[in-house]
């Protein structure tokens, strides 16, 4: 059915009807005209035939020549629609058929009543021959002829009709295509399917322009819909947010009502509908039901209260803001405890000034009433107490004072209201106390103090004052309450006691002097006790140089044995030369591994290149020369060594002689240090003073200690020292010896039993001070020990080795030098970092 309503069908139908009309007219008219024309033609033809035959008969009769008749008949018979030809002769006024061709019944010729035949007569007369020629044609044959003629017309018409209808269908579809497309587009747009692709087309006609307008409209719709969607989303979000806020607000309102124990109600007078918040029902202990008549509340009131409240209703007037407000005391059923409620209501009028709504609140104020009662009682206490009570605002202006204060001050309430309490102070009031009061009150703190005040009449009185700030829930000070106790009598008593004490003071001073003397002795005793405590440390201090001396002596013994072993293998000249070289090259033999390697390489190069020493033992010789601290600049000595019979043995002798010198020097230094320790102890004991502070060169100071431990270090420890030249601190050299000794000894003890032993000593000057680091690759110090290792008697070593005083001494020495120490330890390295103040500071 939709198709028949479509625009295509309508256009097509118009065309189709037109074509059908034309063709129908043509189909009807054309054969009719054909039939008419053909009939006329046939009649004419028939007439001519009849006349021809008649003429031929006349000629035949006239000339006795019948060939013309034969020819005429043959010609007539050639017509397919020819039915018959006949010659009728009239004899005695009767017509009779002379002959017919083809032969037919005479009756048919004479009557000529057959409707299917078309007759034509041609009269003739010749002499006594009078008659007529009758020609008959079959109408059926004419019709057949007409049909034969019109059949192609019909077929052609049908073909034209079909072709036209089909052609017009496509033409209609073509014409209506833009409209259908536009309809489809608009229908799609109507369904809000705006994303449908809609290309722009040529706009050289109205439909094109319409199409393009719709395309533009679609674009605008899309944009509008996007904006609408965004707007809707935005609105939805706002609605959601607003709803949530309203819900939260409603909940907060209910919560607030719950907290404040206040509920609201509304009565629609016209509809007689009640609506109240849950808290209203809760306060009145009524069932919380929709439209529950909260007016039953009246029944809970005393009769006179109810009458008053209801009577007030008549006082409400339109456009006049009136509120009924009163506190009622009611008793709920089954409860003997009274309930205080604060009841309010007002009447709202409509535009006709008729009462429309009653709105009001019911608040449970039982607790407030109770508080008020308590406050009244407290107020009475404050008013009647013998203490003085002052209440001020936050500006410290007096709002209220009690009777006692009025009495003692002599002022009236009116005189004091608005004044500040400073009205009571005068020149004898302690300014410091006043300052303290002001300061504490400004900070919102409570004040407890004593102060001397003066009344209006000049009477002075002492007060024990307690001022408390009154704060709101936000912590803001709203005012102050001062409770004052009159201590004038107590103060008088204190004065008498003070005077009594003054007499006692002289005796107290005497006793004190005696006590001080006693205290000096106690100090000495404490010092001795401290010395006792320090004894262990002192023993350690002494033990270090003594230990060094012992180690040095043992090393010296070994060295001398070596010298004595080598000496017999040397001749006198070599012995002298060795002594000479050893004496000349007096230097510390301790050298770091890295430096030694560098020097060995330089020496080997020197031997091979400068001295052309190409022997196999050149590398070994270079190493031994380096050990003896003989450098390429000592070329004469090196040449002397090379020229000896056995350079290695010769060098061995030199090294042992050098070692002997070093050890002896170390022993001397150690013994000197021990002496210094002893001197320090003696000084401490005698004077409690240290030896003098001096500028100490760090490298030199450390090397002295290294020399002491040189034998142990050389045995299996790789030492690397890297200290800036001339680096110095201001300090006590003995104490620093103790410092280095303990650090080195601690490192050696820590690495005991370890195959690979390394010690790094580094010193540098930084912006903050002199940084000296002692590091070793000993085992990690557990984290929990790091803050304990500097305590006295704390040790992780076995009892044989550790006294637990080493690092304690380190800490003491560093404190004496105002230096700081930090310890870091992990699996690979343990480092003691010390920061000394700069020497000039």
């Amino acid at each position, binding site marked *: 059915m939709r198709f028949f309503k479509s625009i295509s069908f309508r256009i097509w139908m118009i065309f189709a009807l037109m074509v059908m009309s034309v063709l129908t007219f043509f189909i009807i008219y054309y054969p009719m005209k054909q039939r008419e024309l053909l009939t006329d033609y046939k009649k004419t033809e028939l007439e001519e035939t009849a006349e021809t035959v008649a003429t031929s008969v006349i000629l035949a009769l006239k000339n*006795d020549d*019948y060939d013309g*008749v034969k020819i005429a*008949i043959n010609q007539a018979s050639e017509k397919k629609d020819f039915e018959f030809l006949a010659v009728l002769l009239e004899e005695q006024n009767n017509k009779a058929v002379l002959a017919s061709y083809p032969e037919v019944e005479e009756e048919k010729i004479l009557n000529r009543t057959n409707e299917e035949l078309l007759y034509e007569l041609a009269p003739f007369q010749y002499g006594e021959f009078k008659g007529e020629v009758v020609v008959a044609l079959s109408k059926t044959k004419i019709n057949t002829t007409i049909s034969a003629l019109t059949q192609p017309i019909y077929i052609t018409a049908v073909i034209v009709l079909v072709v036209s209808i089909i052609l017009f269908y496509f033409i209609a579809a073509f014409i209506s295509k833009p409209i259908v497309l536009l309809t489809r587009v608009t229908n799609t747009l109507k369904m809000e399917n705006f994303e449908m692709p809609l290309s722009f087309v040529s706009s050289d006609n109205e439909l094109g322009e319409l199409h393009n307008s719709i395309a533009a409209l679609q674009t605008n719709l899309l944009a509008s819909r996007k904006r609408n969607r965004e707007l809707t989303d935005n609105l939805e979000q706002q609605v959601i947010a607003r709803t949530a806020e309203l819900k939260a607000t409603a909940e907060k309102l209910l919560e607030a009502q719950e907290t404040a124990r206040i509920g609201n109600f509304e009565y629609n007078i016209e509809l007689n509908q009640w609506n109240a918040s849950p808290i209203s029902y809760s306060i009145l202990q009524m069932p919380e039901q929709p439209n529950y008549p909260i007016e039953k509340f009246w029944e809970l009131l005393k009769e006179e209260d109810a009458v008053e409240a209801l009577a007030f209703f008549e006082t409400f007037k339109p456009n006049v803001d009136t509120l009924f407000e009163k506190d009622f005391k009611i008793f709920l059923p089954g409860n003997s405890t009274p309930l205080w409620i604060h009841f309010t209501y007002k009447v709202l009028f409509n535009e006709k000034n008729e009462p429309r709504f009653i709105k009001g609140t019911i608040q449970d104020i039982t607790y407030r009433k109770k508080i008020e009662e308590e406050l009244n009682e407290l107020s009475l206490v404050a008013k009647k107490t013998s203490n003085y009570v002052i209440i001020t605002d936050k500006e410290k202006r007096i709002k209220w004072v009690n009777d006692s204060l009025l009495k003692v001050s002599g002022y009236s309430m009116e005189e004091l209201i608005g004044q500040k309490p400073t009205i009571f102070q005068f020149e004898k009031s302690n300014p410091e106390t006043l300052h303290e009061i002001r300061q504490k009150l400004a900070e919102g703190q409570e004040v407890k103090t004593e102060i001397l005040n003066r009344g209006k009449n000049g009477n002075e009185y002492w007060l024990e004052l307690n001022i408390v700030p009154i704060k709101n829930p936000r912590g803001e000070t709203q005012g102050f309450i001062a409770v004052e106790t009159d201590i004038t009598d107590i103060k008088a008593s204190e004065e008498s006691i003070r005077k009594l004490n003054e007499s006692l003071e002289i005796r107290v001073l005497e006793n004190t002097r005696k006590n001080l003397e006693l205290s000096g002795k106690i100090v000495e005793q404490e010092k001795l006790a401290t010395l006792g405590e320090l004894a262990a440390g002192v023993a350690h201090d002494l033990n270090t140089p003594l230990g060094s001396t012992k180690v040095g002596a043992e090393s010296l013994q070994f060295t001398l044995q070596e010298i004595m072993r080598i000496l017999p293998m040397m001749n006198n000249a070599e012995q002298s030369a060795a002594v000479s070289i050893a004496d000349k090259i007096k230097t510390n033999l301790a050298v770091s591994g890295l430096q030694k390697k560098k020097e060995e390489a330089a020496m080997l190069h020197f031997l091979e290149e400068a001295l052309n020493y190409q022997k196999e033992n050149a590398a070994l010789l270079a190493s031994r020369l380096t050990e003896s601290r003989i450098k390429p600049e000592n070329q004469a000595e090196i040449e002397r060594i090379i020229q000896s019979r056995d350079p290695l043995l010769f060098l061995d002798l030199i090294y042992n002689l050098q070692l002997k010198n070093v050890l002896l020097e170390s022993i001397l230094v150690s013994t000197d240090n021990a002496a210094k320790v002893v001197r320090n102890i003696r000084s401490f004991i005698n004077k409690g003073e240290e030896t003098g502070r001096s500028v100490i060169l760090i490298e030199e100071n450390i090397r002295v200690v290294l020399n002491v431990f040189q034998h142990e270090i050389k045995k299996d420890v790789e030492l690397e020292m890297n200290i800036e030249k001339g680096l110095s601190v201001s300090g006590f050299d003995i104490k620093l010896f103790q410092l280095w000794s303990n650090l080195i000894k601690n490192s050696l003890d820590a690495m005991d039993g370890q195959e690979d032993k390394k010690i790094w000593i580094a010193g540098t000057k930084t912006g903050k001070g002199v940084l000296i680091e002692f590091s070793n690759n000993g085992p990690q110090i557990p984290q929990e020990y790091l803050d304990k290792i500097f305590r006295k008697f704390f040790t992780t070593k076995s009892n044989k080795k550790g006294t637990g005083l080493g690092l304690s001494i380190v800490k003491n020495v560093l404190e004496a030098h105002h230096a700081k120490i930090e310890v870091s330890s992990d699996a690979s390295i343990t480092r003691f970092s010390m920061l000394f103040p700069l020497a000039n500071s």
Partner: protein
Amino acid sequence: MGFKKWNRLLFLLVWYISGSFHKAAAQQTPVAQDFVVIGNDIGIKSVSSSGLTSIFRGKYSSWSNSQSAIIVLPSKKNPSAGLVALFLYKTSITGMQKFWLSQVFQGRSNAPSFLDSDEEIIDYVEKNPGAIGIIRKASVSSKLNPNRIILITN
């Protein structure tokens, strides 16, 4: 109307009656002996009276020798016409014309050749093979080829 007029009418009546007598005397039933039938190559030499009638009534369109039959008759201008009509068609010249008009009209026979004199008949037959004609005996002349004569038997 005067006397002369009545005399003229009377004369005409007398002439008509006398003429009628004359005709009655002349129209005595002719017999075969009054006529000579001539034919040219028609395959026969003699013919019976009934055969002759059949031939001249157009019954045969061709001869036994396959020669087309051409009937030659005296026209109404020929003096022999009345006798021939009477002899062959038992009618007058007009009747003979009706007969042949009817025959030709109905396509039963070919149209005969009507000639205005017996001499023309003799000459026509002589010139046209298949032609058969009839002349009065009185018209026989030397022009007639004896071989053309068809004997009429009883």
